[in-house]
């Protein structure tokens, strides 16, 4: 496929698709930030939920995150990839058709998300909320992108792949792996499905995906863009190509392991937590190596920082990258996570990354690229300067407000008095104390959004003043003179790296003898390596050769990113049968006196429906279901959470933020009437709450006709429903609803037994304890429990 003899060619770049992605970036960026401003307003003023089901915080928050990540940064990334790839490889994209399939397919996905999220159609997993038909579309579009990209690599007219291309390769490969695995699911209808993973497994797979969506969607492609566009804007080559080699390989190898740092002190096995923490801390080195490589690219040209707003955007972006990648590993240290997790500190951290790093890179790239794509000058450099300062003020105000709010929350939650009891037992006090910082956050977000609107106007005027350009160049192909695939795979770095990986696995997963052998093996490797220094002499180095062989390079990237995922996920999947379904009474939190009891019985049909409503409304974006083993948490919420309690939970609902209190032991804590009043008007039971009202649940009936189908799918996933339970699902649900309705009636409240409100109450009352009375089948349940 690669050219074998040098021939002169004329190449016309396909910049139409770059222009399309650039425009989409501008439009969706404004939309995503507008929704961000709205949800920030809702945090300060609950009335901004507008009293509509489809504009509640729980539904709009996924719209905001997906719009910013996949619509704004996604389109920006594709614009940068298409622009730079063609120029670095000196060839047009291999297929115009696939480029446009990619563009329009991606926009269709975004529109699909914009429609489905407000309707409450979601998988309930953060950053993976898209329903399964849209997931399929994502995979198809990604495949079109990948085929086009790798086809272009094969047709290139430049022998070596520049460092930006490496980062693009890692993005395409890794996102494909992550997205497919995390979205394995069984549909129950056209718009609903259950993840095939449950409980702890689901949590690990989700955060393996979630963390690496940050790594390989928001970081590696943007680093590729940095390595291309920053030198262009600065007019200087990258500071150190050598450093970029170390940066790339260490970053992609280490990043994939870090996912479990989102689950510190949870029910995830401790070894996986520790591994996530250690690899996160190790990420400091490559991340800062990359940051310094970007910053030092300006050596000798720092004067541009005074006059060029594009350079200003880039430098602040890279600085925010450094800050975020310092803060991330810091938050991954267990003792720091104990303070920061579930608080606004995390919100500040991710916005420093998304708005500071991704947003400023996008602004810089657009200000640089749009005038060139339309053959004109930027309409107003002064306005770009104003944008820069407004956006910088906005993001700093945002991040600092969230730092203060987050650290305050962490300290507030853990504060104990002299007797060792909670100093602030009422959760709502902390929320009320955060309100001022939420308002500061809103002002910061508004400033950032206002700056983005200035950019929209400036770029629109720029486009209007120019016309589309076409770039045509003359190039020579290159003579493919390197070794073949297998020869490269036998190179010393590959063999050395594989040996280190294998020995590490033996060291950590074998007994004493295996560990001793592994340590001896390490010693042999080090000595052999030291002896071989200077021994290998060739015309072209191994990395030079591998840069010239796109297939070999891609395979090595795949191996590098697979190791971490396999080591962390496979043991947990294999260990599924080792999670006990029953424990002794001493470990039970609800059982009456007795012998062994089932810690987790399947949810009743009505509780399944209630849980789906909980997922649909996005309750998990503000409420966790994971009580960590700290005194202050067990005092506030009850017994700490155990892995066994989640074996039938799909999707898991541990959450990652506590704007409201943890709900894992919510069952039985309050009467049905409390939940009724709380859901209809949260401030009637919790003065000062910013939770949206859910009065609409009272009038919406549950579609009980589909409940049996859901139980059937859950049974395929391992939940032990028998045929009688499935056949009687509707009647059982109505009967259980009837019990709750009868209880509410004693308080003078009238509500239908099949209303969504009743179903949700049944689920909330089940949380953290065993089966609740279900009028129609108590005998069947009891019989089955006894038979076990």
């Amino acid at each position, binding site marked *: 496929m690669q050219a074998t003899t040098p021939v002169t060619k004329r190449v016309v770049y*396909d910049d139409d698709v770059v222009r399309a992605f650039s425009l989409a970036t501008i439009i969706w960026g404004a939309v995503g930030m507008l929704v961000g401003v709205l949800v920030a307003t809702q945090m300060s003023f609950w009335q901004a939920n507008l009293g509509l089901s489809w504009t509640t915080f729980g539904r709009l928050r996924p719209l905001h995150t997906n719009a910013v990540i996949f619509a704004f940064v996604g389109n920006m990334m594709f614009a940068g990839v298409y622009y730079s790839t063609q120029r670095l490889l000196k060839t047009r994209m291999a297929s115009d058709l696939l480029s446009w399939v990619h563009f329009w397919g991606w926009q269709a996905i975004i529109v699909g998300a914009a429609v489905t999220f407000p309707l409450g159609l979601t998988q309930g997993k953060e950053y993976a909320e898209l329903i399964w038909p849209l997931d399929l579309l994502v995979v198809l579009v990604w495949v079109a992108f990948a085929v086009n990209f790798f086809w272009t690599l094969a047709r290139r007219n430049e022998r070596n792949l520049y460092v930006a291309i490496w980062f693009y390769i890692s993005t395409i490969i890794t996102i494909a792996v992550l997205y497919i695995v995390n979205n394995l699911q069984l549909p129950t209808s056209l718009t609903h499905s259950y993840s095939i993973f449950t409980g702890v497994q689901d949590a690990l797979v989700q955060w393996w995906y979630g963390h690496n969506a940050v790594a390989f969607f928001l970081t590696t492609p943007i680093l590729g863009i940095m390595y291309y566009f920053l030198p262009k804007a600065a007019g200087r080559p990258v500071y150190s190509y050598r450093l970029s080699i170390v940066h790339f390989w260490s970053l992609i190898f280490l990043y994939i392991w870090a996912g479990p740092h989102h689950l510190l002190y949870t029910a995830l096995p401790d070894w996986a937590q520790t591994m996530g923490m250690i690899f996160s801390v190790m990420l400091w080195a490559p991340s800062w190596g990359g940051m310094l490589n970007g910053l030092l690219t300006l050596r000798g040209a720092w004067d541009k920082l005074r006059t060029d707003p594009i350079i200003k955007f880039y430098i602040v972006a890279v600085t925010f990258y450094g800050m975020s990648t310092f803060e991330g590993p810091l938050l991954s240290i267990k003792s720091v996570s104990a303070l920061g997790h579930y608080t606004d500190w995390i919100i500040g951290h991710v916005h420093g990354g998304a708005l500071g790093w991704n947003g400023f890179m996008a602004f810089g790239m657009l200000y640089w690229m749009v005038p*060139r794509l339309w053959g004109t000058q930027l309409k107003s450099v002064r306005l770009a300067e104003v944008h820069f300062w407004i956006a910088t003020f906005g993001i700093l105000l945002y991040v600092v407000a969230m730092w203060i709010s987050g650290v305050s929350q962490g300290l507030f939650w853990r504060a104990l008095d002299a007797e060792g009891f909670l100093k602030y037992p009422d959760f709502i006090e902390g929320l009320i104390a955060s309100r001022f910082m939420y308002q500061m956050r809103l002002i910061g977000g508004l400033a950032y959004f206002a700056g983005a609107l200035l950019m929209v106007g400036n770029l629109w005027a720029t486009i209007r003043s120019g016309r589309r350009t076409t770039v045509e160049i003359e190039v020579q192909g290159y003579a493919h003179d390197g070794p073949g695939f297998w020869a490269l795979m036998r190179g010393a770095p590959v063999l050395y790296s594989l040996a280190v990986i294998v020995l590490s696995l033996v060291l950590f997963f074998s007994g004493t003898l295996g560990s001793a052998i592994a340590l001896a093996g390490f010693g042999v490797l080090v000595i052999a390596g030291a002896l071989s220094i200077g021994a290998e002499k060739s015309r072209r180095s191994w990395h030079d050769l591998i840069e010239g062989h796109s297939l070999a390079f891609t395979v090595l990237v795949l191996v590098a990113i697979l190791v971490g995922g396999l080591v962390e996920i496979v043991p947990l999947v294999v260990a599924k049968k080792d999670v006990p379904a029953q424990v002794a009474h001493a470990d039970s939190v609800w059982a009456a006196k007795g012998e062994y009891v089932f810690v987790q019985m399947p949810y009743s049909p009505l509780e399944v429906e209630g849980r789906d409503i909980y997922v649909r409304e996005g309750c998990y974006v503000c409420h966790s279901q994971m009580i960590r083993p700290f005194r202050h948490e067990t005092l506030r919420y009850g017994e700490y959470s155990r892995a066994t309690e989640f074996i039938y939970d799909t999707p898991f609902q541990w959450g990652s933020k506590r704007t409201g209190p943890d709900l894992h032991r919510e069952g039985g804590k309050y009467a049905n009437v409390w939940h009724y009043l709380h859901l209809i008007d949260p401030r009637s039971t919790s003065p000062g709450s910013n939770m949206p009202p859910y009065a609409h649940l009272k009038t919406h009936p549950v579609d009980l006709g589909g409940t049996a189908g859901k139980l059937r799918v859950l049974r395929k996933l391992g939940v032990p429903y028998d045929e009688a339970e499935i056949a009687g699902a509707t009647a059982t649900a109505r009967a259980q609803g009837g019990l709750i309705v009868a209880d509410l009636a004693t308080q003078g409240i009238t509500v239908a037994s099949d209303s969504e409100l009743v179903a949700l109450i049944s689920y909330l009352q089940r949380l953290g304890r065993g089966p609740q009375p279900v009028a129609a089948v108590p005998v069947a349940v009891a019989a089955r429990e006894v038979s076990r």
Partner: protein
Amino acid sequence: MDVLMITVFVSLLLVVGGLVLFFVRQRAGDFDHGDRLSLLPLADDPQGDPVPDVKPQEP
């Protein structure tokens, strides 16, 4: 305490191994080919000299 010793030992071994690998590859010239490649972004198309819009030719 035993765990600490083993952890320190393994960590040092990995650090030494990493340094050895780095110097092996440096002596083998793995980092010496980048001078031309680092200039690629600066010389990829005729910036500032856009040509009038024409129908692109199929490659």
